[in-house]
């Protein structure tokens, strides 16, 4: 690990007092960044330590929204969401990710900004446009079984690894940020990420001096919620494909649906075309299949990951079908299909 200086953000010492530089990094739980620093993929000269930022550990609730502080751990957020039927998909997604040890340390803000687990991004002997712009992409002609099929470019096919962000996308959460000048703004999670294009090293719309303060989730009556994750082993593995779905059926018609995919996109994938296609139409298996086909129209495999295209189609159609059946049997249902 390269040497770095440390400045701690506290409730009394704000970001404006500290300032940032191009080589600064915010350090929250460190479950991803510390690892990247060990690999010398990240070599920050200045660390802005967030471990003493106590006010970012709170979850606040109003009539209209939940506000999750950026430093709330994945465990605390999963436990909180488990108790609320309108946040079930978030609890399911969080608990499907990583291990208890990692979830106890990983934070809400950090989870959103974690980096890809592309093998070639981690292997500093290989070209990677994300790690070293202009060096090339070894994944295109390499082992690309875990890589993305949506939102890719000829410069990068790395998939986004987060489960939580997929649920946040389905729930239409907003990210609240502050910068060193004290300016604040809200960004929908659906607009937080940038497609790789020819600048895969730029992953979000956040400026270098912009810090995630909290995530706001709108409160509303939701429907049957599922996070379905398909992976190589049943625990402690990243998604090959995953589906987050919140569906409300009224008189056999899909009255409302939120749909997001994980594992298949270079960013958590909001399946907006599929949602629009299904909304206010009578539920049927051909409807789900046509809708997902429409979403997957631009999908392109790179060889090893071709299987993800039929797999996400089948998984999404299954999840939607299951939610529809559950809504038919339990009109007005909100939450998970199965929960203890």
């Amino acid at each position: 690990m390269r040497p770095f200086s440390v400045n701690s953000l506290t409730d009394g010492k704000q970001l404006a007092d500290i300032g940032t530089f191009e080589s600064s990094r915010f350090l929250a739980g460190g479950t991803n960044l510390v690892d990247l620093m060990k690999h010398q993929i990240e070599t920050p000269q200045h660390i802005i330590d967030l471990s003493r930022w106590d006010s970012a550990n709170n979850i606040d609730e109003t009539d209209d929204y939940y506000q999750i502080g950026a430093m709330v751990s994945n465990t605390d957020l999963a436990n909180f969401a488990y108790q609320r039927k309108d946040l079930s998909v978030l609890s399911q997604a969080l608990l499907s990710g990583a291990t208890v040890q990692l979830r106890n340390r990983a934070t809400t803000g950090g989870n959103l900004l974690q980096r890809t687990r592309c093998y070639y991004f981690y292997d500093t002997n290989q070209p990677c446009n994300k790690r070293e712009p202009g060096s090339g992409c070894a994944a295109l002609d390499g082992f690309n079984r875990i890589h993305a099929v949506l939102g890719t470019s000829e410069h990068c096919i790395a998939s986004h690894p987060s489960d939580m962000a997929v649920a946040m996308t389905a729930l239409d959460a907003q990210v609240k940020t502050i910068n060193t000048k004290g300016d604040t703004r809200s960004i929908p999670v659906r607009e937080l990420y940038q497609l790789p294009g020819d600048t895969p090293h730029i992953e979000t719309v956040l400026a270098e001096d912009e810090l995630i303060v909290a995530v706001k989730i709108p409160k509303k009556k939701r429907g049957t919620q599922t996070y379905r994750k398909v992976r190589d082993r049943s625990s402690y593995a990243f998604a090959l494909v995953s589906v987050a779905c919140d569906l409300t059926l009224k008189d056999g018609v899909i009255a409302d649906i939120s749909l997001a995919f994980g594992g298949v996109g270079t960013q958590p994938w909001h399946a907006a075309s599929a949602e629009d296609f299904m909304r206010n139409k009578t539920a049927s298996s051909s409807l789900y299949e046509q809708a997902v086909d429409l979403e997957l129209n631009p999908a392109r495999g790179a060889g090893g990951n071709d299987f993800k295209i039929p797999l996400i189609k089948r998984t999404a159609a299954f999840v939607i079908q299951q939610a529809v059946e559950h809504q038919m049997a339990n009109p007005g249902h909100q939450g998970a299909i199965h929960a203890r």
Partner: protein
Amino acid sequence: MATITINGQEYPLPDDPRTTLLDFLHQHLKLFGAKKGCDHGQCGACTVVVDNERMNACLLLAFQLEGKSVTTIEGIASEEELHPLQKAFVKCDAFQCGFCTSGQICSGVSMMNELQENNPSTVWFEPNYSEQEDIKERMSGNLCRCGAYANIIDAVNIVRQDKEVS
């Protein structure tokens, strides 16, 4: 002075902010119970308990832990006798080479608390919930390359069901 409490004893934090908790335990305190397996948060051999939560010591930068209380395998037992889970590991033959054992036990002890607090797991959303699958899921952050998993689960079950361990 910034300090950290390890197994009930207070120590000054290391000067170099690059020092992980695991390296601090090994190189500064000569506490070698927590093991360095992968050093990347993948194997769980370095699992310790930080303020009642299990974490991978290899991914924690020690400077971030000012004022925290850490329990390692060296602090799990009382002065007089082994922790019930340690006894259960002996009884069930729950280890072969032993390299993962300190992490398994710290993880298992923490897991008992999580179960008592009714913390959910992903298995709780499955149609065919079983306690066995729940335990396996909760212990999945600790790899055992000897493959003693079945006996580790037996040891955990003995303590969970509060059976006498002698």
